[in-house]
């Protein structure tokens, strides 16, 4: 049933008893054309675009737990595309364009909220780095503008722009089209769209092995619900990518860390945008529900535990309270962790592997949510065509052999 105000009213009149299942939950078949390992936003988007745009509908998405239960449901929902390197900006801009039409595309309100993402500069070095972003983005056709401190204050009144504080705000970059979206809705919306187009979504189905034929090519997967044959397997397992890829004997340039986030109790609107500060490691926005949504750091060590140390939250809230002194009396409601897979250059890996039929999409680190539609879209193309999508090509795994990295971390490096 189509989602619309009219149908909401109609269903309300009949006690909402007519709403159908948003996605089917079939038993796995013996074989599919494509198996996607991982039922998060990226995996479901991949399946959706395979079925909706590439004519590959005989697809299964295998999720070991519940849909969107990994980083899709654990992030701080920030969307932006103002990356430094043109390869990155192109990929994230592709995603942002898809975000803009996603609610209509999926007929599911993902609440894309173009409220603006502001990245603060606190010193001369920040100004140089951020202005470089602004110039590079402008050339790439990605909106990004430089704001003076007064303009910063006008855009986000609760910021403290006094020049006398420890890390004064000397300016900012603002991407107006950046913003937030409702994280769960993205997974659910793609699941509903994919299911309607014939994709089998199978939850509680953990992949335990990757089968290969005599020639070494992929032949399918072993799962907790039995073997499933497929000539193409796309691994979209985020923090668990190293584990799944190891099943095919493929070693990855990844480390998995717990990344924490937290929210306050809900309050009436107090900030209209997203604010990020790389220098003091703080970022915050306010959800539509009223919670202040705050991204904390990763723990220092590799872990799959989804829990982090208390000192990480302490450190984050020190920075948040310094930047937003009015929030000091608010209270932390929930603090959680996700497992992020981080590459040496902080850019994702999308593409083919040395194993024929095995495709991988991982390494999104702390910033994968914003890429969800674009990631799924280019990965679907890559799987369907058997060769990298134009936008995905620079992100191939073999860049770690040639040394042609896309170093977004280095772009923010501080020295002198």
């Amino acid at each position, binding site marked *: 049933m189509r989602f619309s105000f009219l149908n909401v009213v109609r269903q309300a009149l009949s006690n909402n008893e007519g709403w159908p299942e948003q996605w089917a939950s079939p038993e796995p078949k013996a074989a599919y054309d494509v198996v996607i390992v991982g039922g998060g936003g990226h995996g479901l988007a991949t399946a959706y675009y395979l079925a909706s745009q590439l004519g590959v509908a005989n697809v299964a998405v295998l999720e070991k737990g519940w849909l969107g239960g990994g980083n899709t449901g654990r992030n701080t929902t920030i969307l932006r595309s103002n990356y430094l390197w043109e390869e990155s900006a192109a990929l994230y801009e592709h995603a942002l364009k898809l975000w803009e039409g996603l609610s209509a595309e999926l007929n599911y309100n993902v609440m894309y909220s173009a409220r603006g993402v502001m990245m603060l500069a606190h010193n001369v070095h920040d100004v140089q780095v951020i202005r470089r972003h602004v110039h590079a983005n402008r050339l790439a056709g990605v909106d990004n503008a430089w704001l003076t401190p007064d303009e910063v204050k006008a855009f986000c009144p609760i910021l403290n722009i006094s020049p006398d504080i*420890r890390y004064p705000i000397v300016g900012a970059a603002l991407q107006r089209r950046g913003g937030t979206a409702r994280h769960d809705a993205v997974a659910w919306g793609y699941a509903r769209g994919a299911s309607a187009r014939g994709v089998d979504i199978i939850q509680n189905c953990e992949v335990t092995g990757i089968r290969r034929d005599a020639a070494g090519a992929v032949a399918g997967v072993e799962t907790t619900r039995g073997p499933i044959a497929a000539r193409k397997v796309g691994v979209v397992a985020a923090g668990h990518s190293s584990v799944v890829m190891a099943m095919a004997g493929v070693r990855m340039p990844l480390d998995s860390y717990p990344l924490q986030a937290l929210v306050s109790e809900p309050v009436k609107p107090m900030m209209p945008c997203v604010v990020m500060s790389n220098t003091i490691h703080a970022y915050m926005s306010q959800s539509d529900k009223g919670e202040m949504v705050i991204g904390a750091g990763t723990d220092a060590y590799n872990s799959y535990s989804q829990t982090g140390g208390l000192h990480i939250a302490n450190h984050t809230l020190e*920075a948040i309270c310094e930047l937003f002194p009015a*929030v000091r009396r608010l209270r932390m409601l929930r603090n959680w962790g996700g497992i992020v897979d981080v590459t040496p250059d902080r850019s994702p890996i999308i593409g083919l592997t040395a194993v024929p039929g095995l495709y991988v999409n991982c390494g999104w680190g702390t910033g994968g949510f914003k890429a969800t539609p674009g990631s799924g879209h280019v990965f679907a193309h890559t799987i369907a065509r058997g060769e990298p999508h134009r936008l995905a090509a620079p992100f191939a795994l073999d860049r770690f052999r040639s040394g042609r990295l896309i170093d977004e971390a280095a772009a923010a490096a501080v020295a002198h």
Partner: protein
Amino acid sequence: MSQAFRVPGGVALDRARPISFTFDGVAYAGYEGDTLASALLANGVRIVGRSYKYHRPRGIVSAGPEEPNALVGVARGPGRFTPNLRATEVELTDGLVATSQNRWPSLRFDIGAISDLLAPLFGAGFYYKTFMGPNWLGPNWAWKRVYEPVVRRAAGLGTAPTAPDPDRYARYFDHCDVLVVGAGAAGLAAARAAADSGADVVLCDEAAAPGGSLLAETRATIEGRPARDWLAETLQALGAAANVRILTRTQAFGCYAQNFVGLSERLPEPALIADPTLPRERLWQMRAREVVLAAGAIERPLVFADNDRPGILLAESARRYLNLYGVKVGERVVVVTAHDSAYRAALDLASAGVAVALIADLRDEASGPLPQAARAAGIEVAVKASVHAIRGRGRIEAVRLAAHPGGMRTLACDALLMSGGWTPSVHLFSQARGKLAFDAGLEAFRPGPPVARQRSAGACNATFGLQEALAEGDAAGRAAAEAAGRSPPDPRAIPVEGAPPAAGGTLGAPLHVLGDRHARAFVDFQNDVCVKDVELAIQEGYRSIEHVKRYTTTGMATDQGKLSNMNALAIAAAVRRTSIPEVGLTTFRPPYMPVTFGAFAGPARDDLFDPARRTPIHAWAAERGAAFEDVGQWKRAWYFPRRGEGMRAAVAREGRTVRAGVGLFDASTLGKIEVVGRDAALFLERMYANAFKKLEVGRCRYGLMLTETGYLMDDGVIGRLAPDRFHVTTTTGGAARVLAQMEDYLQTEFTDLEVWLTSTTEQWATIAVQGPRARDTIAPFVEGLDLSNAAFPHMSVRDGKACGVPARVMRVSFSGELGYEINVGSAYGLDVWKALFAEAEKHGGCAYGTETMHVLRAEKGYVIVGQETDGTVTLADLGLDWAIGKAKADFVGKRSLRLAEPAREGRKQLVGLLTEDPTVVLEEGAQVTATATPPTGSSALGHITSSYPSATLGRSIALALVAGGRARVGEKLFASTAAGAVAAIVTAPCFFDPDGKRLHG
């Protein structure tokens, strides 16, 4: 208003101390010891808040921190407004100003309540299905411009604070042998047993007064004394013990790895008013050898239609209001229960003169000792009960229920006490990764074997009887002390009388509510989640309990599902026709209760947020009116404006002064590392791209350190002091990173080398004296050194004395002029600086800051790591590959230079750029393109890394990284500006004295 519902009794109250307070602007009276909730109930205030979605009028449901409805804002002067406080936890203080939330214009008449009339539209997840179009307005236009602003204004609870919080917060690390969480019966027994063992014990409790359920206990005796006397004596004994600390108002909110427990302690408001130096809250980060969890249990609401009406509250909470605060929750009450414990409440209320119209028990029979006692007291008891309707909107007026005997009837009442039984508080156990097991008999998740060194005792372990809880607490306390290495005494028998067992309980919703899509039967009060919402979620395929939670938002309110989670789970299981364990449990995450941001941040604010590093010369510069810039943690003098000068004029003057005479620059922030040992030269050869073995003693070399991936990481001058001793300098921001990389390789890769590394950054003050008159400036102060060119040439280092103190003098230059850097002990830095400055002034010299330093070096084309480089730049890109020790077999980063990318042709190279218009100063970060109007989406050739007006050259200069740049010298390229592209000619990256003659002056 008089306190119409106040009755005699109330152990928590001090009736000699009346208190006045206001709620929504109306003045009320209460007593010291009241909570805001008890005082409001005493005054007959029933509506205390509005629900989140439907704005339904809501009253107080509980007496504790699990309260979902009674959330208020409390103000105490500027910056001290706190939203979303639970009235059940707000201690009443004289003059307290509290306001209700989420209503407009008033609590009684709330426009938002219209949403209650439209409730069928607002079923679970309705917002995912609408608010999307119309699409002809443009994608997402309507959501952004219309719907989201409305949604945002309607959502949220309390008003957001706007002013900075003036209060202080403290943060501690602490240790103990045994941490006991919860000072109820089990916790007290555990603390006593552990204390008797000599263990270092910390006992914490979230309430102002420890005691848990014992505080409201009227009938039981423990060890022969009334329970409350036993409580007082036990607390007194524990309080007197030197090895026990009792932390009240202290919530154990998080259990982290290896028994690292977060506790948040709030101080009472009167104490804060009396002593403003006290912190408002303290965060205790407690490392406990052993933990005893005695966190108790939370009573469950019953799920029936309109179960959210004001006046409907938890039975044990009604008992607490009576026994602790002398408050009767109504004149005529009906009790609906599935657990014996509610009979205790009925008996106590009846004794206090409250009419108990009926105890309606949901169970088939009610035959335990408590029901028998109720019957014996003349209270009517009926079983097989079911609630069918509630009358009254702002306050319950009657309940329609069916029960046996009596059948269907309507009973007038002004309060309804409910109990669905008790849910053990297993949050901390679960946070510590303990696995929970569902006990079908008890219908509760209870702790399985612990993973951490923890023990659960009492109600949180589903041990509900008083005697059993005391025994379990005693055993847990002894076992914990023993595990912590103490010798506990023999087990103690703790006899209890007058506490008959209480059993029972129900989960979820009764059959007549399940499937009734008209019933407004609330599961989660605050978030307005009804049974039908859970049903709808499952109907739509949201089967996992995590999906149910997220789709309906049940359990996501500020009480985090303390009242609602088990009922939601049971309803989901019933709808799915499966078992509760099959549906699963959502994860318990910290914090157990909301904790103030300020407590986490602690004292780290303002100057203590990230303490700034200052050089020994900082105060002098500040006195001179220097502007400072932040570089890493350092404050560096940026420029020294004279009266009326802006930055640009000051920098021009400073630069001209250095080129013409002499300038002093505080270079103390540079990283300094002393590298010493037999293999020091060999070690530097491996760490740096340069050769060092042949560097003569007394000479310096410009060192370039790469990452192992082949890119420039840091630079600095390295001087050889002796065959086995080097003075290494680094960039200001790179000091720690360089030392860490050196230590890493020394300790783990080059373990054959005999080398010691010592950071000397803070030990030396470094004064750069630059300019043609530099030698004249330092000569009067330097002893024991021949400063002549022949004896002390450029790139040399000598140890001598300056101003009579030991000095390490390096002849180096980052300005292109004759230059010295004089290092003296930090304590002497300021005096030596002053002496040198006085001398420099005689030569027309001045002090200059980092900005002039940057301009001077840019005129010379010297790179700054972090400005010309960004971690992706090789030495060849910068034209610095001449420095590589070609003969060396290996150094860090060498092998990577052979990979395809670092060796690629056409990489970006460092060049100079001169704008066609010499007055135009390009913007750093501007993109360099081949044409003036590159099409959007085209690739840049590179970007501007440095750009300044140069006083020396009388025009602007810029450095840039440009693809194939060295082959483009003479070409016209374009740099982006906000107003369009600016033409510039590519040059070599050195604009001044390219032969370096001035260095050797």
